[in-house]
């Protein structure tokens, strides 16, 4: 897991297994949940957010350096474990930001325990079946192809990972894909019950989507907006599914603006 001067590596031992995470910055807690392909370490976006928040970046249970819960079968199992992690590493309500698959986990957490959340940000989240089209099925691509498709175009992918991603990164993707398959093989990347459950959720939610997201169709964002009564969609131009990489500055501004607006409520025990 890549570290930076601002971030330190830590581990939380839970009876269900060790959870590895990065922590950096100061301020209210903000937890970032990674894509299905694992935690790439500290991104530019995380560094920027750490100027305003205490940023926590766990390897979700089963991914990266966190122990694999072999009994886990659903995304909801992962969401429960992540919420246990959050309860241990935060003192009060926390902001929750999920990217792609991490957004799916975040939405599941919101459906179960919104009282612990200061705000919610779903970035290119999956978890809801699109009414038209499909969530791009990574099982039908090589992990390299799939991640390339997560960028707005090939040039953008190459500028980030190079022509050939390093061995360490490919191993992370391979390892991550197995865990993804363990909990979301079928139905692939959605839970039909989630939309219904989210109708009772009122946490302030920002839905950030890349204009060229080929993984999670915009209809998914629209269904989240319709289900979550206090939500709005922000489209980021010239970005794909990995909008936080391709437009980190704009995403940072959106997250800070959204979560910052809730700070008052959080500091008052919201």
């Amino acid at each position, binding site marked *: 897991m890549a570290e930076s001067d601002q971030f330190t590596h830590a581990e939380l031992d839970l009876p269900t297994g060790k959870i590895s995470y990065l922590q950096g910055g100061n301020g209210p807690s903000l937890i970032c949940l990674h894509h299905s392909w694992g935690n790439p370490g500290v991104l530019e976006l995380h560094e920027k957010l750490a100027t305003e928040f205490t940023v926590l970046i766990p390897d979700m249970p089963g991914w990266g350096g966190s122990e694999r819960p072999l009994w886990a079968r659903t995304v909801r199992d992962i969401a429960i474990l992540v919420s246990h992690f959050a309860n241990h590493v935060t003192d009060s309500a926390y902001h929750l930001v999920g990217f792609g698959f991490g957004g799916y986990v975040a939405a599941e957490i919101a459906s179960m325990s919104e009282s612990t959340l200061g705000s919610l940000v779903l970035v290119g989240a999956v978890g809801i079946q699109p009414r038209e089209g499909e969530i791009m099925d990574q*099982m*039908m*691509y*090589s*992990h390299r*192809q799939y991640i390339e498709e997560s960028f707005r175009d090939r040039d953008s992918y190459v500028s980030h990972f190079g022509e050939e991603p390093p061995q360490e990164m490919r191993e992370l993707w*391979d390892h991550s*894909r*197995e865990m*993804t*398959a*363990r909990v979301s*093989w*079928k139905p692939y990347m959605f839970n039909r019950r989630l939309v219904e459950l989210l109708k009772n959720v009122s946490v302030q939610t920002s839905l950030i989507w890349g204009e060229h997201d080929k993984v999670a169709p915009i209809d998914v964002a629209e269904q989240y907006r319709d289900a979550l009564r206090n939500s709005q969609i922000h489209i980021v131009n010239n970005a794909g599914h990995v909008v936080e990489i391709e437009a980190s500055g704009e995403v940072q501004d959106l997250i800070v603006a959204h979560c910052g607006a809730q700070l008052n409520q959080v500091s008052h025990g919201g």
Partner: protein
Amino acid sequence: MFVGYFTERPYQDQSSGYFGATGRSITDLTMSNSSYDPKLGADLYNRYLDEKIFAEEMGFDGLMLNEHHSTPFCMGGVMNLEAAILARITQRAKIVLLGNILPIWDDPLFLAEELAEIDMISRGRLVTGWVRGTGRESVAHNAAAPYNWERFQEAHDFIIKAWTQPGPYRWEGDHYHFRYVNPWARPFQDPHPPIWIPGVMSRNTVAWAAKHRYPYVMLATELEPTRESYEYYTEVAKEEGYETGTQHRGYLFKVHVDENEKLADEVGRKFVQGPSNPFLEGNQGTVRPFIQNLPGLTQRNNLLPTMRSFAAAASRGRAAQHKEEAAKEGKKVEPPKPDKPRDTYIDQTEKYSIISGTPDTVIPRVRHVLETLRPGSIFFWDGDGAMSHDDSMRSLRLMGSEVIPAVREMAKELDLKGPFEVDPQTNKPIENGDDTAASEESKDAS
């Protein structure tokens, strides 16, 4: 020695544009079934059944079927149906299923019932074999790849119990749940049909088969890695406290026999033609590696020596890994050239992957295989690729009249006893287990 006959039952559509060595190659799991012609399918299914009947008449001990899904190279998507038909229309030969893909069954009770019915209809001629399947099968039937091995083992345990423990009872496993297990069909054979395990690359499966004392049938793998894989089986057996014998070893290999060498060469080349088959070296079409290597399907680092072969690795979508491993060892890998079938055909004949010739040239080459591997069961893989019905029938006739009798003599000389002569579970001789008698009876009939 147990001698079986096998073909993948390819969907041979001359008009498809995908047929033959110069046809368009097929990329795995990309070809729409909109071009499927059920009338042609009807002809082919009946042809392959007819060939099985003839194989029995020619003295084969076993008629082997296999199963793949959503692909034109194998029409055995519902192998158990073919087996049920063979159970009724054949008389003597074992019906060898290598094998049912356990992890893709969501209801293994249904499978236990089907196999028991086949065993009864055939009056105890079923040999049941179970496999984990390739990525293609996991995708086609949407079985979660990471649980493939767990489901394989649990389905196995469930079926054995369903066959051997009187019901009703509950089954609450990790992957299967039944509130009433009491199948009203039990196998004809007591306690159940023999179980053989076919495979290509997984050490886990070999070790598991050895622990259960199930014969392990290597599927058209190259000779030396196959021998080494058998040794691994033997090592595990020793740890389990028993000695292995030829009864624990099976081998499938490509054999075609014809009336003269020219014809044998011409028809032998058809192995690498026809609809693309990743398991027919040189005829691979385009395998999509990520489908064959679905996450969690097999352990990335627990493979048999058979994966040293580029063709075997490529058929399982591991060509890139194969090259990387070879590079680490300072070896240069030259993959076969699919656009030059002559090259790959010759290459395969040289390394005994394909044996094609007249009886005079085939018999010594088969002997080499038997001496090298010492299997108790062999299967001749023939009638495949672009081979016609006539090609298959000529070969079967010559196998029956010359090759099989010679193989039986060799087996006696080399002391190669099959699993119906020596019980793999006990290593004790089986009474009336000499398959020669059956062969003689068949020869008289022909």
